[in-house]
């Protein structure tokens, strides 16, 4: 296993040294050139010497703190500690009442985080629905504002533009109480991605450099698709994903040595019948598994991916694709597992009920991760001897004491006898998830931001519009 990880690493270095990586930004090319890389400015191609990559890896902190408005929700990324969270990509919503597909709105930007705030197995909120009913320049600020205002959990986002990133950072600074405070407790985190194969586009690079300069934790990753933007074999796709990520991390570390970075793995397969990105593929879990192993080899936290489905509605396909994929990624020790809740249909669509369902999937997977506890109390040998043959354990204090921690207690999965289920009206899982979502939306209110802070954040949205 180690020998294979070593070889994947060596081949990544070789790829970056011989074929190189395109960076479509003058400044990035200069940064690389000054550091000793071989740069072809007209082709925007950088051939990176292995020692630059190794230096960069050594400089990456092993532990990265992503702070939450409420410190009890702080996310500490290290080793194989696992967190589950949401995703920034969807543009559509399956309306909770009508079930029809519609575009996302600013109201969804406020409602989704409030829902997530109440779901205990979802640990972080990646700003998640793109609002179509506001001026486009304000869309990202709306998404991030919704996260800060309506959940106390840790907030991150895809920036889409430099202005989007800066607006989010400004909001985070206001909540933190200043630039220095934000650096100590980074309340926002952004991801930048390579465009496979081996091409870092202008916007991503500029945002990467900006984030590096500001010293904020930065997710640097790639999302190759086996069969289209990467070779069809999973190993080669993982190699590209790794190399592209290393190239971005190297740039970041040259720009700001010691920058907290999180390496990102979002690669999957293309469906070779349609060319579509397969978000729900089991292969994504496998590629993530290898990426997690590499992250542990490098000692850098990983922005992992799992729990997605290409189903168009919350159906059986959604169940098994999400369950299987998330389990693989989580058991591999993916640290910051995004995309784990809410999404359907090639990352395009969210539904309120899917969040509730995915919360339960995350709960089951979390239970799988925690394994079987060992020790005398858990062996309960004395208890077994005491109860003896032909006894039962229902009345034992030990049972009551450990029942909640030893058994995962699902809210949605129905474990009643058929008769009892029929008496209840034969409710489906989706019905119950919708009811739960409605209940949360009606009753759950996270601690609001202080009024003046909330006003300032809304001002930032307005100022983005004026631009």
């Amino acid at each position, binding site marked *: 296993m180690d020998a294979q990880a070593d070889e994947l690493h060596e081949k990544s270095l070789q790829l970056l040294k011989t074929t190189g990586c395109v960076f479509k930004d003058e400044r990035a090319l200069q940064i690389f050139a000054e550091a000793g890389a071989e740069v072809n400015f007209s082709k925007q191609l950088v051939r990176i010497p292995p020692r630059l990559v190794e230096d960069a890896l050594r400089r990456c902190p092993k532990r990265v703190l992503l702070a939450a408005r409420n410190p009890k929700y702080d996310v500490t990324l290290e080793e194989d500690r696992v967190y589950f969270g949401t995703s920034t990509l969807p543009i559509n919503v399956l309306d909770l009442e009508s079930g029809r597909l519609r575009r996302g709105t600013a109201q969804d930007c406020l409602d989704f985080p409030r829902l997530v705030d109440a779901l205990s197995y979802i640990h972080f909120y990646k700003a998640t629905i793109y609002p179509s009913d506001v001026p*486009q320049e304000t869309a990202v600020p709306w998404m991030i504002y919704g996260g800060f205002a309506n959940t106390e959990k840790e907030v991150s986002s895809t920036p*889409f533009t430099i202005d989007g990133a800066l607006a989010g950072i400004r909001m985070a600074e206001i909540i933190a109480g200043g630039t220095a405070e934000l650096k100590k407790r980074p309340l926002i985190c952004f991801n930048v991605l390579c465009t496979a194969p081996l091409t870092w586009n202008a916007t991503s690079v500029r945002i990467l450099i900006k984030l590096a300069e500001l010293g904020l934790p930065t997710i640097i990753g790639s999302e190759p698709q086996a069969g*289209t*933007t990467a070779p069809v074999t999973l190993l080669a796709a993982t190699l590209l994903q790794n190399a592209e990520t290393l190239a971005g991390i190297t740039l970041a570390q040259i720009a700001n040595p010691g920058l907290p970075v999180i390496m990102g793995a979002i690669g999957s397969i*293309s469906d*070779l019948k*349609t*060319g579509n990105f397969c978000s729900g593929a089991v292969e994504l879990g496998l590629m993530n598994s290898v990426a997690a192993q590499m992250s542990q080899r490098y000692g850098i936290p990983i922005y992992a991916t799992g729990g997605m489905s290409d189903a168009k509605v919350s159906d059986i396909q959604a169940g098994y694709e999400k369950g299987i994929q998330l389990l693989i990624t989580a058991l591999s020790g993916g640290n910051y597992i995004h995309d784990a809740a809410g999404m359907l249909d090639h990352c*395009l669509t969210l539904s309120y009920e899917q969040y509730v369902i995915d919360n339960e999937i995350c709960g089951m997977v979390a239970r799988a991760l925690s394994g079987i506890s060992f020790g005398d109390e858990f062996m309960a040998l004395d208890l077994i001897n005491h109860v003896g043959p032909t006894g039962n354990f229902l009345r034992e204090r030990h049972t009551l004491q450990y029942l909640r921690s030893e058994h995962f207690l699902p809210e949605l999965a129905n474990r009643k006898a058929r008769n009892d289920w029929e008496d209840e009206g034969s409710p489906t899982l989706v019905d119950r998830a919708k009811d739960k979502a409605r209940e949360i939306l009606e009753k759950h209110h996270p601690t609001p931001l202080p009024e003046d802070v909330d006003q300032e954040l809304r001002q930032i949205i307005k100022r983005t519009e004026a631009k």
Partner: protein
Amino acid sequence: MSDLYTMFAEMVIDGNVEGIKGLTEQVLHEGAMAHTILEEGLLPGMNVVGRRFKAGDMFIPEVLLSASTMNAAMELLRPLLSASEAAPVGTIVIGTVEGDIHNIGKNLVTMLLEGARFKVVDLGVDIAPRAFVEAAKEHKPDILAMSALLTTTVPKMAETINALHEAGIRNHLKIMVGGAPVTQEFADKIGADGYASNAATAAEKARALLGE
């Protein structure tokens, strides 16, 4: 003789590039007509490929191999065909709109359109409305096709259509749009002539727009 043309069709379906070169040379040498090989051998083969692809029974790499196979035969036939027989069925200018760097979908559609014997001018990604207009003036395409993957960039499609109107050439061509956030409803709203939600249908729609 019909068995012979079935062999051409089968080679196209199977993606037998080497085999079809040999067969084409042999059959031409024996006196067969180039246009008959095209009409009764190659095109029926590609039609089967098209049907199977749309039904989800063939993979894209297989379809591309079939297209390469047909091309290999066409290389040998082209000098012997009349100008109209050898010509592409139409010209398409395609690009991803301004601000958007996504290109797989566009590339896939391009490859399949070429397989369907269109001449395709691929402008690339991040193409501003005026660049589309310039390309339309230069290449005089039958169809101008736009792709976008981001909701932020989808509005550029309407802008491009406006730019074509202002340049006075909107009605000289047909407009097709596509990409994950694009819908039939949106395409209708901006006045596009065609929309396809997958690459297989795109080639079909393109032909339909040309009245094929």
